[in-house]
């Protein structure tokens, strides 16, 4: 019986490995590991707009605004943690600054040669401001256009904004070097990245996503952990039977 179970587990693992699709991640000339996107919105502060709804964050608690019910409690939005360039969280001029704490769950940013973290924004942000705080050090971001390898400007293809879907939306990027935040070359970034968004103009300060351009090795896949723990459990059951 146990042999059959183990065989099933091995088959499951083999099938999972075969089904694993080869993926990459890149936004224009910015390339990074496919698990190196800041996928955790740890906490936030401020009133922000995601193109459809108004959200308010106070630490880890979130509220969403509805014209009928007003502010009600809600779950953490995924706009700033998914892999779509077209979704975003934004600060507007009339709603004040927004502060977001982002982190990586599948990898860690590492200080290697060149810039280590990249932030991507929608629309022209040169008149707005954003700053990144890591380890108590704050740095203002400098925005630049994003181009493909062949020099073609990159845009977001379907951005929801107040009931309309917009294409050809400009993408801007800003990158930082971890050495500027007191992290030595070769060391990893531990702890969240705090990014402050401020809109000084009528253009919303919209953060699309953040990525680690240099990250640690790919961790053991979940299937391997499942397989390992399954084997340990089977061993335990076998010992109890004996």
């Amino acid at each position, binding site marked *: 019986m146990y042999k059959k179970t183990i065989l099933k587990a091995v088959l499951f693992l083999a099938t999972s490995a075969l089904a694993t*699709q*080869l*993926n*990459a*991640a*890149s*936004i*224009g000339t910015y390339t990074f590991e*496919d698990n190196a996107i800041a996928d955790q919105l740890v906490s936030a502060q401020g*009133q922000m*707009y995601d193109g459809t709804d*108004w959200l*308010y964050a*106070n630490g880890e608690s979130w*509220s969403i*605004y509805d014209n009928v019910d*007003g*502010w009600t409690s809600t779950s953490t939005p995924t706009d700033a943690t998914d*892999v*779509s*360039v*077209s*979704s975003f969280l934004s600060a*507007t001029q*009339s*709603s004040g600054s927004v502060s977001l704490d982002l982190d990586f769950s599948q990898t860690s940013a590492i200080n290697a040669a060149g810039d280590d973290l990249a932030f991507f924004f929608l*629309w*022209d942000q040169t008149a707005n401001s954003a700053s990144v705080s890591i380890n108590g050090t704050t740095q203002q971001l400098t925005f630049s256009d994003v181009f*493909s390898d062949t020099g*073609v*400007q*990159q*845009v*977001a*293809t*379907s*951005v929801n*904004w*107040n009931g*309309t879907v*917009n*294409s*050809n*939306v*400009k*993408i801007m990027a800003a990158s930082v070097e971890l050495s500027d935040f007191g992290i030595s070359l070769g060391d990893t970034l531990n702890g969240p990245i705090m990014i402050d968004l401020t809109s000084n103009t*009528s*253009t*919303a300060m919209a953060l699309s996503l953040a990525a680690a351009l240099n990250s640690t090795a790919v961790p053991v896949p979940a299937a391997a952990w499942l397989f390992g723990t399954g084997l340990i459990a089977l061993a335990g059951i076998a010992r109890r039977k004996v």
Partner: protein
Amino acid sequence: MNKAYLLSLALLLPVHAGAVEQDSVYTWGQWANGVKPAAGPVAKVTPPPAQTPDVNFRANEASALLREAVTTPPRNIITGIGDANPSTPIQVAPPTSITPPPPPPALQ
């Protein structure tokens, strides 16, 4: 024995020589005019350029199955991105302004 052998050889050889077909591919007959040996002093002939056979053996193969398709780069997990459309202006600001709702009671 030796004499008989040599005699029979002497008689038979001319018979064979006369029986040879003169224009056979086994002899240098008429067919060999213009043909030069591959080696030796007269072999300095520039061969014609090699011709590549113009045959498509994969005419019925779907392009997706060609070996070249394997070199396709990995799928990009980032979605919602593309090249700018040159026929329309790039959107540098949201299309409409929005009015934020009143802040939550905790903020007021």
